[in-house]
């Protein structure tokens, strides 16, 4: 290796109380909280500040404020969330989420957010799939941008406060732009710091800190057709595994039903669910609104059975049931998949999403400006005049780091996780709109948890082992040394990984295909270890991808292994060979831990039973669809309800 690549000498070092990895909604909210609790906080951003994937969220932020329908409450939101996740959710997380979301949204207004308003001047709320009442605070169809900008500007305002006091904007909270963490340091069984490189210079940097919050988002870049950006390489998931933490629910991936399918270069880019919330309908090549044929039994009571009733619902939600286009995302994605497979798809292999015949052109432009813009500029389609072509796209991973619901801490002391990269909150399937609220609720909790943990240490911090730093440095430079040994192009290996996951562990899964996938992943792992990169360390995308590959691979293994293990279909996990939801699997969590560099270990773990007063929020008849007979013993409607205490 040339001296320019190796750059011997001391590496930059920073000391912080809390290091937040990720500058999306969860990371920024965590950092705001940690700073509010008096902790010196670093925010590590893989991209520029304010570009995080949160900007892609379109529809809104779910919070039971009851501004549009006063019947809404945290309990209704809680029920919807559990139903959406097919009762596999960590119920405590779902409870905290439903209870705290309204406060988190109102707080954003004090930071300067400008949501759309109701006629009486409060925050307006819109309908969305799986939500009983209009619940999503929104700004047109660019809610994620509003969220990220608001949090970004709040951080700037905190920096301005610090500047007035200390003369240094960065004294208590600093953003490290375009900086990627490649390793976490663990000493004496707890977090000690993290290792990173700057994209721009290729220089290494080390952060010494007793608490680290992972807020790195999802894993979609392991798939070919995805709505996720290049950053979504499962960094937090992989860092957590390597640090000794566990992942849960990794078999559950959400394929958003409506991604663009044409032109090829934009395949996978999201078409917001608001199109359907605002009246858009799905049709097959025969012009039929096919979703009426796909209402599953567990949802029969809540959805319209005729087009007339469905259409009346938009104006009168009290007396009509909602149209089946607004079923939870997993149901709609599977239905589209089936229509295309049956030969009733659109010309480019999707189905038609029609808003043009449902709303007036100016109304469409006002309610869905980004969608109008996106189709006009990327596909040359005018959505006020013609139908969009849409199909499923890999959108969100329900699985993630196993954390304590209240403090967001993982199994590793000092390691916290929030947002998409933590698991449990959404169970087997996330409702639209529950992601932005998840970021805020658990971002804040992770920041508070990290601050409390640091306080509890009483100043005693684990020291980073110097050998670990040397090791991290060597590992990061490996792709350059492989260059002299003729390793493969990382882009080629990445494409193969994406194709493997897309084809063999996609929306519909089969045992033999997943076994093939696991074999293929082993082969790809060997090749990924020796990918080689040319050029220098300054802003070298080939090098960055080579390092990201390591994470994508480990996470893909988790997805494939857990998906093979779970022999039922539930939410974001559909088995062709086990097509039915099985109550005996509802209470089982598949827990993954790292086994060496690129292998993972899987164990089954029982889900904790729901607290009785939460359990009683549901009717027994509904619970019967999900629970085994013996689990229902504690319900209020059950005569033998005397064993309630066991539920705690």
């Amino acid at each position: 290796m040339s001296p320019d690549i190796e750059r011997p000498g001391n590496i930059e070092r920073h000391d912080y109380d809390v290091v937040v990895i990720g500058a999306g909604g969860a990371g920024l909210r965590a950092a705001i909280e940690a700073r509010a609790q008096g902790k010196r906080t670093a925010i590590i951003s893989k991209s520029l500040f304010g570009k995080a994937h949160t900007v892609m969220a379109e529809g809104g932020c779910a919070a039971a404020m009851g501004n549009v329908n006063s019947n809404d409450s945290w309990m209704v939101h809680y029920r919807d969330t559990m139903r959406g996740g097919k009762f596999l959710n960590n119920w405590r997380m779902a409870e905290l989420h439903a209870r705290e979301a309204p406060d988190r949204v109102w707080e954003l207004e004090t930071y300067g957010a400008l949501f759309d308003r109701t006629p009486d001047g409060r925050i307006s709320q819109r309908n969305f799939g799986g939500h009983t009442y209009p619940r999503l605070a929104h700004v047109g169809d660019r809610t994620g941008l509003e969220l990220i900008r608001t949090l970004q500007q709040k951080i700037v305002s905190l920096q301005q406060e610090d500047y007035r006091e200390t003369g240094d904007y960065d004294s208590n909270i600093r953003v490290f732009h375009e900086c990627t963490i490649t390793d976490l340091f663990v000493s004496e069984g707890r977090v000690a710091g993290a290792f990173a490189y700057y994209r721009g210079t290729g220089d290494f940097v080390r952060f010494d800190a007793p608490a680290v919050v992972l807020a790195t988002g999802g894993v979609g870049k392991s798939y070919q057709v995805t709505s996720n950006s290049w950053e979504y390489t499962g960094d937090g998931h992989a860092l957590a595994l390597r640090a000794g933490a566990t992942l849960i629910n990794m078999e559950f991936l959400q394929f958003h039903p409506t991604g663009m399918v044409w032109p090829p270069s934009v395949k996978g880019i999201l078409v917001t669910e608001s199109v359907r919330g605002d009246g858009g309908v799905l049709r097959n090549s025969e012009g039929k609104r096919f979703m009426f044929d796909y209402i599953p039994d567990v949802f029969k009571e809540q959805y319209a059975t005729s087009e007339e009733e469905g259409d009346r619902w938009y104006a009168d939600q009290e007396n009509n049931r909602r149209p089946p286009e607004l079923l939870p995302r997993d149901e709609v994605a599977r239905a589209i998949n089936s229509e295309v497979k049956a030969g009733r798809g659109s010309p480019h292999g999707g189905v038609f999403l029609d808003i043009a015949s449902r709303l007036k052109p100016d109304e469409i432009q006002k309610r869905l400006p980004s969608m109008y813009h996106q189709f006009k500029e990327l596909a040359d389609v005018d959505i006020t005049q013609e139908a969009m072509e849409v199909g499923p796209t890999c959108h969100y991973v329900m699985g993630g780091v196993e954390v304590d619901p209240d403090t967001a801490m993982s199994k590793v002391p000092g390691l916290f996780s929030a947002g998409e990269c933590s698991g449990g909150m959404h169970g087997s399937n996330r409702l639209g709109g529950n992601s932005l609220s998840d970021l805020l609720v658990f971002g804040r909790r992770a920041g508070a948890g990290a601050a409390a943990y640091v306080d509890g240490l009483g100043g005693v911090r684990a020291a980073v082992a110097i050998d670990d730093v040397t090791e991290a440095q060597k590992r990061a430079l490996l792709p350059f040394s492989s260059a002299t040994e003729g390793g493969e192009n990382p882009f080629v290996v990445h494409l193969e990984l994406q194709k493997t996951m897309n084809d063999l562990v996609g929306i519909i899964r089969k045992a033999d295909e997943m076994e093939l996938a696991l074999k293929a992943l082993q082969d790809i792992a060997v090749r990924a270890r020796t990918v080689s990169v040319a050029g220098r360390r300054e802003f070298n995308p080939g090098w960055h991808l080579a390092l990201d590959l390591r994470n994508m691979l480990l996470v893909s293994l988790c997805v494939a292994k857990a998906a093979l293990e779970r022999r039922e279909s539930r939410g974001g996990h559909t088995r062709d060979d086990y097509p039915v939801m099985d109550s005996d699997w509802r209470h089982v969590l598949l827990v993954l831990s790292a086994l060496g560099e690129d292998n993972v270990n899987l164990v089954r773990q029982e889900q904790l039973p729901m607290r009785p007063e939460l359990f009683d929020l549901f009717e027994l008849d509904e619970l019967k669809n999900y629970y085994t007979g013996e689990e229902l013993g504690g319900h209020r409607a059950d005569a033998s309800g005397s064993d309630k205490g066991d539920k705690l």
Partner: protein
Amino acid sequence: MSYDARFRVWRGDDEKGELVDYPVEVNEGEVVLDIIHRLQQTQAQDLAVRWNCKAGKCGSCSAEINGRPRLMCMTRMSTFTETETITVTPLRTFPVIRDLVTDVSFNYTKAREIPSFAPPPDLAPGDYRMAQVDVERSQEFRKCIECFLCQDICHVVRDHEENKESFAGPRYLMRIAELDMHPLDVADRQKEAQEEHGLGMCNITKCCTEVCPEHIKITDNALIPLKERVVDRKYDPLVWLGSKIFKRPGA
């Protein structure tokens, strides 16, 4: 439907660099960013480019395409002829880090100099009441994806490094306008816009509006109204000049 296009891409760093010619395959429906990615995958693995969402929402992939500031992800190849040479260069107003990636820290520095939202001190969270019609003005400016194309094109700083110190640029003058028009903001911002952030240096040529990928009417809806508010308090030679030049005979 595919053909070979001629791409000319700027390669180098802050000290030296050159335009390099690449013949490269183009398929139906592709955008400029797709072609840059193809170059990375096939011919120039270390070609540096900044991008994220590839859907025109994050504002990362800003560059100059045939001399015009644009988002690479929103520039369709079908807007060029098959024989045309397509030249892609980094944003001119900011220092180059490498290839198409520039150091945009100027913008983050300016962002920190604009005083933040000042809420009414006694208003509790949850009690905010604003009419839709009143929030819409600021909402237009909050569509900004911070691609910095307006900052790049603005002639006040484009070829005038010396003005960077005293001029916040269209994006951040618009941020002041946004806060000034926020129905509940209590800070007084107009004097500072003029004296600290260089509002007076803008002579409303509307270049910023023209390049905005979000089609925000930066000049008409943010900068001119802000200038009008300021002029009540402070004499602005440009507004004065404008009022003389554009005054209709007999008006």
